[in-house]
């Protein structure tokens, strides 16, 4: 009995995924707000109108009217007040900004303007923060060090650190961005801690900031982290890690390629492909024999970056005979990029035997092979299969028009 109860409890707990929990919390909040709105309606009906108006519907209507009317007026006032406040604030900020900027410039240049800036930060904290982050992102070396000290002195670093731990997603991202502008010693521990945040956007913001700090160890760690992260984070980091691609090629990528888990291996290959970084044949060959066809396909697509030689040619030809369609398509694409004339017979075979994607790839590859490939395409334009004929005509036209367009 107890075991069953435990089982039920654990099932109930596991049913509450973070997504469902969020929904439940929102629903409770909404019910509370509706309750807060309906309470005055009921109270008005009970204590104000029912005593004066005999008819129940009229009393209810009047209660509703009063509550709704007040809410509408309140909303309108709040709406306009918000705008007005923003207007006033931006006007006052406009006046303060030049002085703050001047102080910060002097501070960065070697003057001591702590007191003045502290005074400004009492009334214009947001503006001081805005200018400080703008300056921090523009300076380096000694000036950055001085501004980092200033950020610590004015309490901004402490605030950002606090936000990094306890704020919402937006605040955490802001904190990560600001911390990444400080000198490495002042921000690194918090940023590394933020890599384990629940939100992928916070993770990526922390990773980007760590990359800005520029330590080689951090770069490799961020790369490793990106391999396990979701596509959004990977997409962001792929762009940011690109300048470090050559560094990563030396040690981090080959190390990851030898792992047993196929996902990081595939992701590492995709990153290398996206950066167009050639990987050594020695590290690619085991992957060309990998059990996972996605890994085989990506590895084949990386082969042309090493240039055409006998060994590469053999592997591409082997790829064209792979049992998996995606691998054959990747091999066709590789053959096309290297203009591998020896692949023409295999490519011609692929036109008839395969699905749409592979057929397209084979035809496009043939279009890059010069007159020998073009002859095959011309023959296929007359093929009875209309799909093949149309795609062959398209590939041929593209191959012939492209140089003309480039000339234009």
């Amino acid at each position, binding site marked *: 009995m107890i075991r069953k109860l435990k089982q039920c409890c654990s099932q109930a707990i596991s049913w509450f995924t973070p997504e469902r929990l969020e929904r439940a919390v929102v629903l409770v909040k909404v019910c509370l707000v509706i309750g807060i709105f309906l309470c005055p309606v009921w109270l008005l009906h009970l204590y104000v109108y029912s005593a004066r108006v005999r008819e129940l519907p009229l009393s209810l209507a009047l209660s509703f009217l009063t509550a709704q009317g007040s809410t509408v007026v309140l909303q309108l006032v709040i709406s306009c007040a918000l705008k007005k406040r923003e207007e006033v604030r931006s006007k006052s900020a406009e006046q303060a900004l030049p002085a703050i900027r001047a102080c910060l410039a002097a501070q960065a240049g070697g003057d001591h303007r702590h007191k003045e800036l502290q005074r400004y930060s009492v009334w214009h904290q947001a503006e001081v923060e805005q200018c400080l982050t703008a300056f921090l992102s523009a300076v380096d070396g000694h000036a950055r060090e001085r501004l980092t000290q200033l950020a610590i002195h004015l309490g901004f670093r402490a605030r950002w650190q606090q936000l990094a731990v306890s704020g919402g997603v937006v605040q955490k991202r802001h904190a990560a961005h600001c911390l990444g502008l400080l000198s490495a010693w002042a921000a690194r521990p918090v940023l590394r801690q933020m890599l384990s945040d629940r939100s992928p956007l916070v993770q990526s913001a922390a990773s980007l900031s760590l990359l800005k700090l520029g330590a080689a160890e951090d770069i490799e760690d961020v790369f490793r982290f990106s391999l396990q992260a979701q596509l959004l984070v990977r*997409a962001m*980091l792929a762009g940011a890690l690109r300048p470090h691609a050559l560094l990563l090629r030396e040690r981090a990528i080959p190390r990851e390629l030898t792992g047993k888990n196929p996902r990081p291996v595939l992701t590492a290959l995709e990153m290398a492909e996206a950066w167009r970084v050639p990987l050594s044949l020695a590290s690619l060959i085991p992957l060309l024999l990998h059990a996972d066809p996605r890994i085989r396909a990506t590895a084949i697509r990386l082969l042309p970056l090493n240039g055409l030689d006998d060994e590469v040619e053999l592997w591409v030809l082997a790829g064209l005979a792979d049992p998996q369609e995606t691998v054959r398509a990747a091999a066709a694409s590789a053959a096309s990029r290297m203009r591998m004339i020896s692949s023409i017979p295999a490519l011609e075979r692929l036109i008839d035997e395969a699905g749409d994607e592979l057929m397209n790839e084979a035809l496009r590859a043939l279009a890059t092979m010069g007159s020998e490939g073009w002859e095959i395409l011309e023959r296929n334009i007359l093929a009875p299969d209309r799909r093949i004929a149309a*795609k062959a005509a398209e590939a041929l036209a593209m191959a012939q028009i492209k140089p003309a367009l480039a000339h234009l």
Partner: protein
Amino acid sequence: MDYELLDIYAHRVYFFFESGIILYVFLINTIYFFLTIMAYFLMRKHHAVFSPAEQDTLLASPLMPSISLIVPAYNEAMTVRESAGCMLRLNYPNYEVVVVNDGSKDDTLKILIEEFRLYKSARSANGTLPTKPVRDVYESLDPIRLVVVDKENGGKADSINAGINMASSPLVMVVDSDSLIERDGLLQMVKPYLEDPERVIAIGGTVRAVNDCEVLHGRVRNIRPSFSWLANFQAVEYLRAFFGGRVGFSLINSLLIISGAFGLFRRDAVLEAGGFEESTIGEDMELVVRMHHLWRRKKKPYRIVYLAQPVCWTEVPQSWKILHRQRKRWQRGTVESLWRHREMLLHPRFGAVGLFAFSYFFCFEMLGPAVEFLGYFLTIMGLIFRIIAPSIAILFFTVSIMGGILLSTSSLLLEEYTDCRYPDWRHSLRLSIAAIVENFGFRQVLTFWRVQGLIDGIKGKKGGWGAMERRGFNVVHKS
């Protein structure tokens, strides 16, 4: 004696009906209010647009999925230059624009050919959705990724399908040719897909009224309410519909509408679902409902998401005649989509979609206008013939009209707290006035039109492209 008894019974029946309608209207408004408040909490929490630094990183990223923008166009000579230009200037690293000219009778194709230096290309379709014959495919001589498909007239759904066939990207975005997407719209829109590429099959964004806003280089500048009150009423209505309804339904993965003017779909999912349905007038809603239907039936995990931040600006009708046609068409589309998939209604197999969203749409969006209209009719008749007490009439109008005002102003406030596209307080005031005034007359007229649409839908009346009288964007030219 008998007459007296009959009279009493008639009064009771009338009262019963009237009370039922009041309860119904109260329920609709409460649900809308519920959804609006829900949207407030969700938008506050998820208002996580990319920061400029993140945008820069994403723009430089080689891993961003490519997107094909499908722009169906029929007699759009007035706006196609601006909107195609705007779509070619979006901030996204990897996308192409596929404009589908659906046999326009005006100069749409000619303008496109001249403006973008198009030549006849040999490009052929990649997809297999059945469409009307494609006459020619054009591409640009300039280094821009623009494809123009010229095909025989077949309707909007047919044009979108032709565009999907021609698309070469894993993601397709359907955009109206009279709409302007914000520069970062694509980047924002693709976020849910990047977060969950396996499950997310469709993403909808917000559509807003662009009337009288300034357009510079295909970009909406100086956002302000229109000088026309009719356009402002619709601007408020759009806010209410998008912020109020869709955020809440998106939370429980039961979103039934993704606007045809601004929706991102996974191409393989659209092909699997069979593309846009040509025989229905509300092809956007029908596709989304069909996707729910199929994916739930196959028990495949999926998500259909609505995002409030990416905005597509569209010209709303400023003439009553066009608005009348549009609203009748929309209502007919709703009826057709819901009727086609009526199997989902209250069916536990379809989860929250069948139990909540579908039944909500069936009871309130489809039948709501008829009940509301009946409410106005019965109340006025009841007052004239003294069948109901004035207090009942007051209660009805309070629940109906004041409830409507509360909803509209709540949506405006929601916009203020989260998106805030109207920075000037005078603009807020103007829209607030519109939010109040629209409930006296405009809403009732819309209700009547929607009843007409409902009747047309039940009759099974067919229709093609919704012809819209274009005024063109308020384009400013600055050196």
